[in-house]
């Protein structure tokens, strides 16, 4: 663990929906270029934590610091501009558009020409389109979905849509990638393929990844840092081995009474 400041740090985050405590006082840090897994039983607050990180929910207390700038009120748009991209538990793709359009939309923050130039197809627009298109095609090639480039997303099978959503997230060249159960509902072969993609992403582009995953096997060989949540509280934080032997974690999973 290199000593310089972590890319992402959560300090005493807590969040509640009208009285129901979703997250209570969680803090942990994620280093640059690390794959960190959030695990824990259903309803442990994993998705809500992810939503807090990327500004969909605003925490009641606590501070998020990203890229050594701290925010108490992170807005979704702000997170995107900072370079945080994510995928959703139940796929949030633009069903009416083609795969290529979805990936190109992922790059909307990188577009330099404005709509007027694009309308008249003049000024910066033509060159801008070519550079955006090349970047998008590279991600499509990277995730091997170029055969479905022009098919409408709504018509694609579930596994493929998961890959397209990852492609859209990668297209924005994020510094931090949040994956909400990327392998849910996949068979083993698809899981292996998706893990390979995640590993390549981290190696190839140096992206820091925070993912939520239930399959402990995948988590153990994929991530270098594991955080375990239970009933909105952090019960484990460290390397996969440390966490495996942590009594509290075992208790949380085996369901002994607190």
């Amino acid at each position, binding site marked *: 663990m290199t000593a310089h400041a972590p890319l992402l740090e959560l300090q005493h985050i807590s969040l509640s929906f009208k009285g129901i405590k979703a997250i209570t006082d969680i803090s942990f840090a994620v280093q640059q270029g690390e794959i960190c897994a959030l695990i824990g039983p259903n309803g442990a607050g994993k998705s809500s934590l992810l939503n807090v990180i990327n500004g969909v929910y605003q925490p009641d207390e606590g501070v998020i610091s990203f890229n050594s700038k701290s925010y108490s009120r992170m807005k979704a748009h702000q997170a995107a501009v900072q370079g945080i991209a994510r995928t959703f538990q139940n796929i949030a*793709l633009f069903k*009416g558009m083609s795969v290529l359009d979805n990936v190109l939309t992922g790059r*909307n923050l990188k577009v330099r020409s404005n709509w007027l130039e694009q*309308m008249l197809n003049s000024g910066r627009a033509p060159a801008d389109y070519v550079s955006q298109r090349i970047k998008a095609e590279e991600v499509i090639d990277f995730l091997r979905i170029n055969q479905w480039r022009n098919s409408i997303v709504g018509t694609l099978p579930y596994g493929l849509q998961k890959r397209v959503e990852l492609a859209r997230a990668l297209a924005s060249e994020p510094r931090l990638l949040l994956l909400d159960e990327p392998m849910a509902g996949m068979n083993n072969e698809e899981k292996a393929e998706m893990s390979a993609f995640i590993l390549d992403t981290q190696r190839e582009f140096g992206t820091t990844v925070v993912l939520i995953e239930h399959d402990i096997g995948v988590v153990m060989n994929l991530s270098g840092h594991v955080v375990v949540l239970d009933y909105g509280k952090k019960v484990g934080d460290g390397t996969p081995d440390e966490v495996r032997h942590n009594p509290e974690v075992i208790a949380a999973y085996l369901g002994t009474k607190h």
Partner: protein
Amino acid sequence: MLYRESGQFNTSYRADQRWFRLWQQRWVFATWMILAFVVVPLIGNDYWLNAILIPFLVLSLAGLGLNLLTGYAGQISLGSAAFMAIGAFATYNFQLRIEGMPLLISLFLGGLTAAGAGVVFGLPSLRIKGFYLLVSTLAAQFFVTWILTQCGWFSNYNASGVITAPPLVVLGQNISSPAGRYLLTLSVAFVLFWLARNIVHGELGRRWMAVRDMDTAAAVIGIPILQTKLLAFAISSFVLGIAGALWAFAYLGTVEPHGFDLSRSFQILFIIIIGGMGSILGSFLGAAFIVLLPILLSNLSATFLAGWVDPGQLENLQKIIFGALIIFFLIKEPQGLARLLEIVRQRARVWPLRF
């Protein structure tokens, strides 16, 4: 099936951006344009130009305007007639109050005024979604018709609030003849359809569709929701404004605020439902359908069953047919005629194979 497409491939991304990939498609489009711009004005008689082609073009333009807002950006609106009214009255006033103002400039400025109004009535769309947006656009609809009848200044203190078209002069040519008005409408429509096509295939079009399909996801990936929605309202109202101006000047010649009432907004909404939401061609097909069906029905009945079905009953019959068609399309093909045409085209492309 009809033409062979193999052998035509793109070696550059610019080529990939073109509207028609195949040269045959470009030729078909070119022949349509020649037919529309050259042949029709020559052979078209008054009835065809005045009563069918000009309203068809203006309504397809209005359909395009609403399609950009509802079909692409997903913001439902029942106030399109109000923006048409603003466009018509603004153009009339620009033409009247500024001496020697060329018609095309006043048309453009009329569109801009309507765009301004569009943005104002689009502001609530940021806070409220779905049905409730209807209220904001309905408020626009009733308020605009009221303000135009109320303040005499808009209709140059005409006793009955009616504005009459100024003599139409473009580049020194008097184009008040039916063919002249037809060509004015056609060229304005052509330009606006071309620009709209470029927008929709560009970044803004994608942002609209993103906001339409899932606005929470759009916000998360960094799309500025505020700016995208307001641009949708502005551009849509701009096109509607110009359509309204053409409706008043090129088609009827005189118009009153009640000419742009709620049933006009319903008519435009039906155009894009039947024609096809979210498709540029859809506005054309829908407008053609809405304009041609009643005329076809009344002509058929006039020639064949003139005897026992009196025109009044026919009007009711036509209302029922329209309503039934709306329901039919929503059930069978929510994306309207454009989607049907697309399916036929896809099936023809792989003919004789099945998929």
